[in-house]
């Protein structure tokens, strides 16, 4: 839609182009270091932050199942609306699409239910139920 389809400014384009892409091996290495660090952490806030960071590393490294695992752990620890939520939404949708292409009914239902649960969580958080 033309009204909202503003082109990126030159500086914005340069910024996007110049942002360095993290190497997959590096991301996986960082994730494994963080997992080791996770074992000794008891503080809820610190643990959630670590889980989110691990999830993010796997997400960027395109390790979908691992990313989902750690992001889900993060939401179990603390049901908050943040990166874990928004990345999980993308991941569930990717898995849903893959299941639809593979005609895997069970997986399709599983990931659609997971998306519905995320939406319910978002309603509950905003309305102060969580």
């Amino acid at each position: 839609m033309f009204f909202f389809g503003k082109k990126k400014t030159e500086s914005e384009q340069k910024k996007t182009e110049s942002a360095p892409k993290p190497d997959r091996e590096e991301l996986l290495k960082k994730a494994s270091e963080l997992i080791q660090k996770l074992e000794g952490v008891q503080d809820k806030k610190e643990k959630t932050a670590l889980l989110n960071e691990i999830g993010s590393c796997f997400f960027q490294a395109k390790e979908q199942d691992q990313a989902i695992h750690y992001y889900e752990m993060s939401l179990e620890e603390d049901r908050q609306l943040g990166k874990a939520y928004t990345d999980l939404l993308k991941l569930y949708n990717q898995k849903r699409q893959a299941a639809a292409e593979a005609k895997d009914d069970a997986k399709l239902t599983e990931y659609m239910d997971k998306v519905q649960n995320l939406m319910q969580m978002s309603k509950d958080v905003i309305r102060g139920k969580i």
Partner: protein
Amino acid sequence: MVVLNFIINNILTQAAVVIGLIACLGLALQKKPAGTVVSGTLKTMLGFLVLSAGSSVIQSSLTFFGTAFNAAFHMKEGAVVASIEAINGQAMSDLGLGGEIAITLAGIFVVNVILARITKFKYIFLTGQALLWEATLCVVFAYFLGLSGLPLILIGSLVGGVFATLMPALAQPIMRQITGSDDIALGHLCTVGYIVSAMVAKVTGDKNKSAEDIQLPKSLEFLQDTYLSVMTVMIPFYLITAAFAGAEACAPFCGNTNHIVYAFLQALQFVTGLYVLMAGVRMLLAEIVPAFQGISMKLVPDSKPALDCPVLFPYAPNSVILGFVFTTIGSLIGMLISPIFGAFVIPGVMSNFFAGGTAGIFANQMGGRRGVVIGCIVHGIFIMILPAMLSPMLAQIGFVNVTCTDVDTIITGFFFMLIKSVVGFF
């Protein structure tokens, strides 16, 4: 032949049976076990009957409110409560369009899938409730145009299917900016209102000063209980109306009971009716929607799912809260000016929350915090004016003191009226 005629004339004319058969078809297509098919079919039929019961309770409460309001304020336009749920209830039970609405709901899924497959708009609309409201308005206005039977269902499905495909497409340019990707779409039929708030915000605001950078409470705790929130809005309206109407005007309804006490109880009755009706809607959709969702997703694997509005809340939680607050302010202004446009409209608190919150996210994306304030006040006024304009037509069709909320469904109504005017012209 006698048996066949009996089935056609006495069983298939019953809306509950038709709705049950659609659920049965959906479950059978998913190859569910026989027990699940039978229980799902029966639960869907039960859902329709629960919905009808809730609708009757709402209608009797609104009949009292409407009469008292006319006696109190002598407004020739009358008062209507903005509730798409009550519209659905009255259409399905009192107007006898339940069967047609259910078949059109299934037809909308089919048209949506066909359009997603053959056009570049790959959106599959997954919000069942919103589609039920859209099916309701399509059937009601097609019926108002004089259509019935198969033509009514075909036209209703076509128009509803086009709306279900194009409305997510309309919101997608801003959705891409909000979510930072093109993975998901918005399946909530208040899209035109969101675009209005975004346009106003773009003109009046500054997107560099985001509402997300300020400190706000993280949640709206007073909205924890949906029905309690609706009650806090309805009770004052009923009490003020009864006080102005006086005991004599209310006497045909309340008999020996004090008219203020009666009005208080009728406000609670409205909420009770809404509670029962929504329980029915959930039961009715619980089997139908997942069946068709699964089928749609498999038929168009590269589709973008159009999801309900809470999916956006985590991207801008402050904007949700500000959007609700300023849409409510706007809707109160809209309520005061609504008689000019056709009826005095009482706003719906829950639609203000969901539509207002989402409008806040759109406005913030285009115009920052100032955009949210101005855009959402305009949005609040807009979502009051449109229902006011539609209410004379709804009254003519037979709806009692009620109007729609979701603006895209209202635009569907206007679209049908436009067709009626054009056809009438020739």
